[in-house]
Each structure stands twice: as structure tokens, then as C-alpha cells.
């Protein structure tokens, strides 16, 4: 209860404000609310998802103009206007997203700059939208027979919508889809390997951000009751982004804080700057620009984390994982069944041949070790097998089917789990949630049920599975710690738990024992033996020879991208070619 106190005080102030405050402040709060809705979308898109748009004002414009035009020229209901606005916005966002989200990160913001400009000029030049004068006489909004024709009444609608959006966003982030969204920034490749369709996830958050902006525009049109192109220009789009960044782009409440601070500051600067400079103009942008640079240099997380530190309320993190019915598991094939078959694989990066003539098999219930000096091409082989990089030529079969053209998330879907040579996890997320990303494909509930938290039963099962795998690898004590605070060796073990959450037939482990101490290595070997006994196939890249030789059933030795030896551990150890590769020092 105590930790909810600030929120309750905030809500109480919000409810009581309109009757008590003068008109001017209510108007200001209305605008803060409208801007916050847009900024909230940017928190999701930029702060959490790592994508950026400078063109959100254009989406606000679409929402405003759609209802403005339909409700004046065709006298349709504002609610139809809302639907039309959402539809148009969604269509535009999908097309833009499709074009830019597959390119590297900076094309989206650049695209939105161009897009924001074109749409602004379009609003100003289309006859039927009233050109630069815009549309007037937009009808009053009616809600259940009640006319919202003053700012004080409209206030409640704006803030209910905003708080609803905040709640939905918070819910969404705390869910299976939310983990996928949070993985976008800094974990795209890892998430794909766990079965997350990152292009789809990016499109979803871009869409949500656009739709939030559209709703804000719709509210704006019926509050103002006229629209013209000015508030939808690129510079306003830039201000929306500033709000999110200044407030704290990684926190939903940062959107409200940023919108509040910038709106009030702008009001104040617009009053005093023309007096100081003795001429009129938008001089507040000078201060906004400098302020933003300082925020990015000095406090890149924005003002929200700083504000939270001032409020002496301890937030209790979740400390337990609820019991839940276990997720269904795959039936392991009989020991000895061929799981993976690589034939004559060749991988070329430009002129550099990283793998050539590589052939190997992994069977169910065996540990196959891939060894060789550094730079021999083992990790490249791993990336080809797991669908991260496409083969240049050759064949890969998994469970009898050709898979060399498939992407990594498809390999995860088919039952391949992997770890990475350089640990890839989300350092500020808890150990439990990091591992739960591995179980992504074992849940099915989407964005809508996540925002409404209608997927709690499934979520509990996913988290319980993550916990079970963590206990299995011996990290049961660390469920709620930040993943980045674990020692490097344990971070590798965490990756194994995450790969096990995929419920794989085949486990690919890239140097799992590196950085582990002796006893930890023993425990790891024990775990892998158990998995093998259950029928799982394990393909292992490792440098620690003691570890490999004591564990592997068969060994393939690579050098210069090719297989130079294959066989039982004892045979390989005696192979002169192998000895030469490993020990060929100077004479």
C-alpha cells in the first residue's frame, strides 16, 4: 500500500484539479495530457524499443484531420472520425514501417523527417482540407448524451484516455510480448534466435506509437474545434521526441513528466524571451536544443529516474514466482536418431572463406564436440547451423528437413536452442525474465491480451518454466537479480537455461565452460550428461580439453574452416594432424 501512495496522491490531485484551478491552468493541463499521449508512444518506441521517430506530429495530424474533415464536410459522427483516423494511421504506419524497419536503425528517423515534412506540406496545400487556414466548425464531442464543450469537461476525457494508455503500456511491457519489445534494444540477434520475430515486434511498437499519436490528434481536434497544419509540423514532432527524452524515455511516467516540464517551460520562455531579446519569435527552441544536449550528455536516462530518487518510497520488486501448471514438452526422439546433418557446407564472407567442405552429424542422446584453434571457423559454423548466417553453398538438415535457407527464429521453432560465444543477454533485466525470453514460442497470447493482462495464466506458466530451468542449471538463487550483475561464467550458464526454455531437441553451446571455475565446470558437465541421458543432442564448441575429452562422445576437429579430423576423443587426441594443428610451435 505504501508504495502506491505517490500514485494515489497524483490521481487525487488530477481529479480535484479542474474545479479548483483557473481556466488557464486547466487548458495547460489539457495540453500536457494530449502531449503525454504522444510522448508515451515514443517511450515505447524509442526508450524501450530503441527506434526513433521525429514524425509523430504527422500522425497527430492524421487523427485530427480525419475527424475534422469527416465531421465537417460529411457531418459524420466524431467516433467514425476516430475510426477512420486510426485506420488511415495504421495503414500509413504499416507501409512506413515495412519500408524502414528492416533497414539499419537510422533510416527510420530519417524517413520520418522526410515523411513529417511532406505530410505537413500536404495538409497545407490540399484544398479540401482548407489549405493553410485549415478546417473550422468541428463539432463538439458527445459522450453518452453529455456534451464536452468546455476545457474543464474535456479534461477528464483526456486524462482518462492517457491513464488508460499508461496502464495498457505498463501491462504490455510486463508480458511475453513486452519482453520481446524490451529485447529489441541491444538484443535483436539473441531474440531472433529465441524465436522472436523482431521485424514484427518493431512494426507493432511503431504502430502503437502512431495510434497513440492519432488518438491525441482526434482529442485535439474536438477540444480546439478547428485544425490547421501548424501543430503537425516537423518541429512539433521534434518537440514530442524531446518530451520523451527529457522526461526519461525508458519509463512510462517519463512521458508525462517530460510533457509537463516542456509544456510549462515553453509557456514561460515564450513570455519572457521576447522581452529579453526585444523581438518576437520562437526563441524557446534555443533553450530546448541546449537543454536536450545537456540532458543527453549528463543524464541520458532523463529526469524521471532522478525524480524517483527524491521520493523516499521503496519499491518492492517481485520476489516469488507463482506455481503454475508446467508447459507441454516435446517428446525426445530415440537415442541415435540423426538430428542434425551438415553436408559440404561452405561459408564465404566476401573473399574470405570461413568454412569449407564441412560435414558433421549430431544424433539424439550424444554430445558432439567441435574443437579447433581460435579462428578455425567454429563459431561461423554455429551461426550457419542456427540460421544466423546463410550458407554460401552446401546443405544442412535438421530432423531430416533442409534448413539451410531458414532464419534463426525458424530454427528455434523447430527445436534448436543455442548460446553465444560472446554472452548476449539484457543486463538490466532480471535473470528470470532473460531466461523467459527463451520460452517465447511456447506462449501464444498477443499484444492486446497482454495490454489488458488477460494472459496471466499463460504468463505464470512461462515464468514457472524459466524458474524450473534456472534451478536445473543451478541459478535458482539468483532469479531476481539483474542479469548483468552475475559473473561472466554464470552469465554463460544463464544462456544455457534460456536455450533449455526453447525446449530443444538439439542444444548448441558455444564455449559454455569459458570463465568457469573447476567445480562449476564439473557441475556443468554433470548437467550436460543428464540432458544427454534424456535424449537431447548437444553440439559443443569448447577450448578446455579436459572438459571436452571427459564429456564428448565424438569429436570433430577444425582448422582453417575445414574438418581435419573426426572420431572418438581418444582417437582424435592421437591423430598427428591434430597434434600438429594444436602444438605446431616454432622449431
Amino acid at each position: 500500500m505504501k508504495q502506491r501512495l505517490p500514485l494515489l496522491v497524483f490521481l487525487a490531485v488530477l481529479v480535484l484539479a479542474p474545479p479548483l484551478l483557473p481556466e488557464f491552468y486547466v487548458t495547460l493541463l489539457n495540453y500536457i495530457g494530449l502531449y503525454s499521449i504522444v510522448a508515451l508512444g515514443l517511450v515505447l518506441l524509442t526508450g524501450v524499443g530503441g527506434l526513433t521517430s521525429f514524425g509523430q506530429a504527422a500522425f497527430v495530424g492524421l487523427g485530427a484531420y480525419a475527424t475534422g474533415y469527416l465531421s465537417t464536410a460529411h457531418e459524420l459522427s466524431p467516433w467514425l472520425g476516430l475510426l477512420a483516423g486510426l485506420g488511415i494511421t495504421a495503414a500509413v504506419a504499416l507501409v512506413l514501417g515495412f519500408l524502414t524497419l528492416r533497414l539499419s536503425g537510422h533510416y527510420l528517423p530519417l524517413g520520418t523527417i522526410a515523411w513529417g515534412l511532406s505530410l505537413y506540406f500536404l495538409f497545407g496545400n490540399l484544398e479540401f482540407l482548407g489549405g493553410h487556414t485549415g478546417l473550422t466548425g468541428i463539432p463538439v464531442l458527445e459522450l453518452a448524451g453529455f456534451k464536452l464543450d468546455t476545457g474543464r469537461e474535456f479534461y477528464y476525457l483526456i486524462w482518462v484516455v492517457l491513464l488508460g494508455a499508461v496502464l495498457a503500456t505498463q501491462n504490455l511491457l510486463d508480458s511475453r510480448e513486452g519482453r520481446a519489445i524490451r529485447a529489441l534494444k541491444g538484443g535483436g540477434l539473441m531474440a531472433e534466435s529465441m524465436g522472436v520475430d523482431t521485424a514484427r515486434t518493431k512494426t507493432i511498437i511503431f504502430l502503437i506509437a502512431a495510434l497513440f499519436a492519432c488518438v491525441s490528434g482526434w482529442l485535439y481536434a474536438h477540444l480546439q474545434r478547428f485544425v490547421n497544419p501548424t501543430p503537425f509540423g516537423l518541429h512539433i514532432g521534434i518537440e514530442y521526441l524531446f518530451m520523451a527524452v527529457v522526461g526519461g524515455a525508458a519509463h512510462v511516467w517519463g512521458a508525462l513528466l517530460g510533457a509537463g516540464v516542456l509544456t510549462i517551460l515553453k509557456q514561460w520562455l515564450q513570455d519572457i524571451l521576447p522581452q529579453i531579446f526585444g523581438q518576437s519569435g520562437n526563441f524557446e527552441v534555443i533553450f530546448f536544443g541546449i537543454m536536450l544536449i545537456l540532458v543527453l550528455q549528463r543524464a541520458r536516462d532523463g529526469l524521471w529516474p532522478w525524480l524517483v530518487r527524491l521520493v523516499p518510497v521503496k519499491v518492492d520488486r517481485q520476489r516469488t514466482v507463482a506455481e503454475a501448471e508446467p508447459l507441454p514438452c516435446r517428446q525426445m526422439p530415440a537415442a541415435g536418431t540423426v538430428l542434425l546433418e551438415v553436408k559440404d557446407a561452405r561459408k564465404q564472407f566476401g573473399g574470405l572463406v570461413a568454412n569449407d567442405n564441412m560435414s558433421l552429424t549430431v544424433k539424439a542422446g550424444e554430445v558432439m564436440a567441435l574443437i579447433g584453434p581460435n579462428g578455425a571457423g567454429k563459431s561461423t559454423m554455429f551461426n550457419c547451423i542456427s540460421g544466423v548466417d546463410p550458407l554460401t553453398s552446401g546443405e544442412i538438415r535438421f530432423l531430416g528437413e533442409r534448413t539451410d535457407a531458414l532464419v534463426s527464429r525458424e530454427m528455434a521453432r523447430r527445436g534448436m536452442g543455442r548460446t553465444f560465444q560472446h554472452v548476449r543477454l539484457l543486463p538490466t533485466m532480471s535473470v528470470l525474465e532473460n531466461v523467459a525470453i527463451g520460452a517465447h514460442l511456447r506462449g501464444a497470447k498477443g499484444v492486446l491480451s497482454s495490454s489488458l493482462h488477460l494472459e496471466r495464466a499463460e504468463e505464470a506458466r512461462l515464468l514457472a518454466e524459466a524458474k524450473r530451468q534456472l534451478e536445473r542449471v543451478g541459478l535458482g538463487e539468483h532469479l531476481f537479480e539483474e542479469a548483468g550483475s552475475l559473473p561472466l561464467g554464470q552469465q554463460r550458464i544463464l544462456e544455457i537455461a534460456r536455450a533449455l526454455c526453447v525446449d530443444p531437441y538439439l542444444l548448441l553451446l558455444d564455449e559454455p565452460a569459458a570463465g568457469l571455475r573447476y567445480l562449476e565446470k564439473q557441475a556443468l558437465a554433470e548437467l550436460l550428461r543428464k540432458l544427454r541421458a534424456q535424449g537431447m543432442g548437444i553440439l559443443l564448441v569448447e577450448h578446455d580439453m579436459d572438459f571436452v575429452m571427459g564429456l564428448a562422445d565424438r569429436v570433430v576437429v577444425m582448422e582453417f574452416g575445414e574438418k581435419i579430423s573426426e572420431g572418438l576423443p581418444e582417437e582424435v587426441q592421437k591423430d598427428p594432424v591434430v597434434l600438429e594443428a594444436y602444438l605446431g610451435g616454432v622449431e
Partner: protein
Amino acid sequence: MSTPILEIRDLCVSYGKVEALHHINLKVAAGQIVTVIGPNGAGKTTMLSAIMGLLPSKGEIEFQGEVQRDIEVEHLVAMGMTLVPEKRALFGEMSVEDNLLLGAFMRYRAGDRDQGKTMDQVFGTFPRLKERRAQLAGTLSGGERQMLAVGRALMAKPKLLMLDEPSLGLAPLIVREIFHIIADLKKTGVAILLVEQNARAALQIADYGYVLETGSVALEGESRALADDPRVVETYLGLGGKKQ
């Protein structure tokens, strides 16, 4: 050991909240080859990056008798420290000659104009580079790339040359050649800090060695003694030297 050209005391490096390197102490005497060996993930590359100022670190780094307070790559290069990184970091779309010229960038800024002479010396050490002087660095073979990386570092006329896994991905014959050249370089008076996985080859040409394991120095000693140390034989000399 005579006066050290490089002395590191209590060096610690952290990635985020995790400490990757714990209280490393290490010395390189003038004109010596010192090697640091150890398995993957032991922190060898991290250590070199920290010494070179590419990574923030705690502890003391003394180079040529001066404690470096504000460790900056450019400053260290100007003082005569060079690093040949594991990935070589060549300028692939530029010619071999331009790569070498850029190796002397800091000296050029300081007013030295003897790059032609230095380049001739480098060509003397690596005749293969002379043949390929007009070729783009990106088109060289693996061994030639390593030679170019070392040659480029020599263009700075370094006092201390740090090599990160020069044998990485090279055929045994080429490795042999590179190690011969490294051993020869010692005769020119440059001190060498050699980080290697290929423990046997490294210990053969080094005067002194350190074994790095999970971020700490596990063993150190004269390289000959180290090469015979059963613990090294067992752990790092790999397959052939397993427990009898």
C-alpha cells in the same frame, strides 16, 4: 629483471557491474619479450585494451618511468606504445603503402619526415609487403595481413610493441615465420608484450611469461621454467601434454 619499460600495478577492469580483470601486476623489461598466455575468456585482450587506454581501468600503469594518469590512446602512441589488435584493424580499402604511412601518423604530426626510411626498414623485415605495396590491404592473405599489421605498428618506431594473438587463424608455417620475425624484432631493441593462446610457441621465444586465468595472474616465471611447469603443461599445452 632490468628497469621495466612497462609496469602495471593492481590493474582492474570492469564491464558494467562485473569485474573482468582482478588486480593484475605485470612488468616488461626494456628489450625483452614477455608473453601472457591463457585460455579463451581469461581476459588477455581486455588487459591489452586497458593498457592501451581503449578501456577504462583502475590501477596504475607506468610507461617509461612515468605513471600515466589520464590514459589516452593518442598520448601513449606518441610516447612509443603500440598495439597490434587481435582483429588486426587494418584499413582494408586503402593500399598497403597508405596503411604503413598512417602507422607513422603520430610521428608525422610531431614533425618527423623520415617515413620513407622507416618504410624501407619495414620492407626489409617483410619483403612480401614491398611486393604488394600498391595492393589494397583488404585483398591480402591472412599471413600478409598480420605482417602488415605488425609493419604498420613498427612505422611508429615503438618502444613497446604489444601483439594480441598474432598466430590467430594462421597456418602453422606462417605462424612459424611470424614468430621468427617477432624473435628477430627483439634484436632491434624494442620490448614486446606478446599475448598468445599458442602457449608453446610463445614460451619458446619469450624471456618471461604470465599465465592468465579467469581474470587473474595464476602463474608467472621465466619462460623456460614456465614451459616445464606441470600445471601449464596440463592446462594450456593441451592435448599432447595430458596427465600421464
